[in-house]
């Protein structure tokens, strides 16, 4: 794979994923310590680092959550090492409590460095939200840079390590889906010799924020100095005519979109482009300098108008204050979402009056005509063989038995797909990592206010260690009435099967203590029931019994390995599944395909009878216990 090439410096240019380019740059910078909790689109950073951890003498770990990851990495920096932490936008919110303090105190004086990579997900392709992390740099008094291309990502992260070391503070590198999950050709720099980093924390150090006011001022002074560096940074560049009346200021993916749109409109020699890569502290003088001759400025950026607000602020009160700053706030670019070549085109056409000729009207009319009735959507769903399909089937039965009067809170993982139209839509509330138990703990007190229906919260195993544990302790201590279900599938499945505290091995593949969910919960002194989610009746029965107990915290662990993990390890189908066409009642019933909805089930368009799609069926056989007419038959496959 391409990442193998990142180990050697033989080739000067290689084809890399954006996250691999960040890894390469970190290795070139001599990173020693890297820690993270997985989150799309950031997960490949730690994954790729873990593959070279042994040969490069690195410590690489999957931490329980992002705050823990950042604390570990910061400690390594205080000990004089080069460290890295990586997370998605939602993860930054978890880590911020620590990071806001860490930028006040700095990283001590042992010459260490810390780069915090935060990967945003504009358009929320794989996230619950598209929160724009760029605001957080100002909030946390921390410098932030943002690459505009995969190639630049390698060089920029190297620079971030240098900056961190020089100013004794951590540095944010902001990535985004199109960078982290884009691939391109990267020019490699030299790798330092693989040596064991030498930790030397100062045991007389006093790295703490309790001189609050002093530290605040020190952080502001530090940012002032870094601002001067950013004013002259080579990462900010101007292209095109210097004295153009229209200036495009672009950050991140806005640069390539803007340049392409200018090419498409033939405006590349008439419009100036200022690429802004140092986002905070903001290079105010640089912006003022390039704004001097402009009459209009178009800002191309993603999600929120961060640069737009900063540019307006920079020009306010200067001779350039009359320049029209256009972008999201002016309605030229839509608020929220990704920046795309089309959004850039649209904005430029609005401003210049140019017209872009796309596909002909005849083609567009034809397109509308032939796709209108048949272009149906493709909803997200659980994989064939997924244990969650069994868990939610059983939950549905148990809730129906209660007359539907059950409040369910959910959490973040593959089971989140329950809330999509193709799920079972059982979760009433769904928010952040670990929110399932915090929400159910609150609802579990509502009996004091006249409402005492059952409350069920649901989380996965990786999420359990991430943020459920404190909520669970709180719920038990405060005697909430709730059932907490842990869907233990032996994996951080949603982000790509990363290791966690419950799997018995660590990020680099070595054996590690296995922290068992069941034993842990038992130690908290509450009743724990364990069931197999593919024992549909048994799971429903367990849920109903727990509901009947009414009081206190009750825990149900539904344990079955993620089908993708099982298939990868065992490479065999345990059963051959066939539908007995004589017994199948077809549409009259439809339980398996229309209600259970495993994607390996097919419905014959003529007869309405079910069949199994051989190439998709993993042979789990759970559908056999769903069929009311015993028409689905399973045969053991000899091993």
């Amino acid at each position: 794979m391409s990442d193998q090439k990142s180990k050697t410096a033989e080739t000067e240019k290689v084809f890399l994923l954006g996250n691999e380019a960040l890894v390469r740059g970190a290795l070139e910078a001599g990173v020693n310590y890297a820690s993270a909790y997985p989150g799309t689109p950031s997960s490949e950073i730690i994954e790729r680092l873990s593959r070279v951890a042994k040969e490069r003498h690195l410590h690489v770990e999957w931490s329980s959550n992002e705050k823990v990851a950042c604390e570990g990495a910061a400690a390594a920096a205080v000990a004089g090492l080069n460290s890295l932490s990586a997370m998605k936008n939602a993860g930054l919110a978890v880590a911020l409590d620590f990071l806001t303090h860490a930028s006040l105190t700095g990283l001590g004086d042992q010459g260490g460095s810390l780069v915090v990579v935060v990967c945003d997900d504009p358009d929320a392709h794989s996230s619950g939200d598209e929160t724009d992390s760029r605001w957080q740099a100002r909030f946390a008094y921390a410098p932030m840079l943002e690459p505009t291309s995969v190639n630049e990502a390698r060089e920029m992260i190297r620079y971030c390590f240098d900056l961190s070391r020089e100013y004794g503070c951590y540095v944010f590198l902001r990535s985004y889906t199109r960078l982290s999950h884009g691939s391109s050709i990267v020019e490699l720099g030299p790798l330092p010799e693989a040596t064991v980093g030498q930790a030397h924390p100062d045991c007389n150090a006093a790295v703490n924020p309790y001189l609050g006011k002093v530290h605040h001022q020190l952080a502001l002074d530090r940012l002032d100095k870094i601002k001067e560096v950013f004013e002259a940074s080579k990462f900010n560049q101007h292209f095109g005519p210097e004295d153009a009346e229209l200036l495009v200021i672009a950050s991140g993916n806005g640069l390539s979109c803007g340049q392409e749109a200018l090419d498409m409109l033939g405006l590349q020699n008439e419009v100036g482009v200022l690429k802004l890569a140092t986002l905070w502290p903001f290079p105010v003088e640089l912006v003022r300098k390039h704004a001097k001759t402009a009459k209009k400025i178009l800002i191309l950026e993603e999600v929120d108008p961060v640069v737009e607000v900063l540019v307006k602020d920079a020009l306010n009160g200067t001779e350039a204050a009359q320049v029209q700053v256009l972008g999201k706030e002016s309605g030229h670019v839509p608020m929220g979402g990704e920046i795309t070549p089309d959004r850039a085109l649209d904005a430029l056409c609005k401003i210049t009056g140019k017209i872009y000729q796309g596909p002909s009207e005849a083609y567009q009319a034809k397109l509308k005509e032939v796709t209108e009735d048949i272009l149906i959507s493709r909803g997200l769903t659980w994989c064939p063989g997924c244990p969650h399909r069994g868990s939610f089937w059983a939950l549905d039965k148990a809730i129906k038995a209660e007359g539907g009067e059950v409040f369910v809170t959910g959490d973040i993982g593959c089971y989140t797909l329950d809330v999509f139209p193709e799920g079972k839509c059982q979760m009433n509330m769904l928010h952040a990592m670990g929110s399932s138990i915090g929400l159910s703990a609150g609802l579990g007190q509502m009996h004091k206010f006249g409402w005492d229906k059952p409350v069920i919260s649901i989380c996965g195993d990786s999420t359990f260690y991430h943020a459920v544990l404190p909520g669970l302790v709180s719920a038990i201590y405060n005697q909430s009435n709730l059932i907490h279900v842990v869907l233990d599938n032996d994996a951080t499945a949603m982000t790509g099967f990363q290791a966690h505290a419950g799997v018995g091995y660590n990020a680099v593949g070595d054996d590690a203590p296995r922290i068992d969910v069941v034993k842990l919960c038992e130690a908290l002194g509450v009743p724990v029931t364990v069931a197999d989610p593919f024992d549909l009746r048994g799971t429903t029965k367990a849920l109903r019994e727990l509901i009947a107990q009414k009081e206190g915290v009750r825990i149900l662990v539904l344990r079955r390995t993620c089908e993708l993990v099982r298939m990868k390890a065992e490479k065999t189908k345990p059963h051959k599944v066939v539908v007995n066409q004589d017994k199948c009642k077809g549409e009259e019933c439809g339980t398996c395909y229309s209600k259970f909805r495993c994607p390996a089930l097919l419905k014959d368009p003529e007869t309405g009878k079910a069949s199994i799609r051989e190439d998709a069926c993993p042979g789990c056989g759970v559908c056999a216990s769903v069929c009311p007419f015993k028409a689905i038959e399973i045969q053991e496959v000899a091993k």
Partner: protein
Amino acid sequence: MSLATDPYNLIVCGVGGQGNILIARLIGRILANNGYYLAIGETFGAAQRGGSVFSSLRISKTRTYGPLIPNGAANLIVSLEPLETLRMLSNFGNEKVVTISNTQTTMPVGVLAGRNEYPTEEKLRGAIEELSQRALFVPATDIAVELGAPIVSNIVLLGALLGAKLLPISEEEVKEDMRSTFPAGKLELNYQALQRGIDTVA
């Protein structure tokens, strides 16, 4: 062989888990080795489970383009599922686009649930042909099942792409890449899949 246009915009699409990313990156690596500037845009992660997925490739002799293809600007769509061909055409189609589609359908769960109806083969094929300058249909999954490994459908389709001679990459270059990136034990099967794909177009 040179590119028909510059930049040349290629889409490789399908349903999550069909292996579109594998062939997109393989094509990308070869073109990069051949001196082309290249960018690939993708969205992946489990949020795509069972959903529509696509990789966009921007290929150029002059500079690195951004990863996103402007609307209506695809030159070639290689698709592991025919409904997904149509979905890509609806965003990126134009009078000159060429499409290569697997014939094997994958039912959206909404169809199984009875909420939607999957278009008939005739209608779907007609729509794709109507919106493509040239539309190729390849029974990639049928061939892969014949070879005993439905998972190599993507490689059969890659073979068809080679057979259609639309990209400046050769069979030997593809095999060379496979030798350095695929497990040795799987090479023979993948070579066979590639050849069967080439044969469907030749």
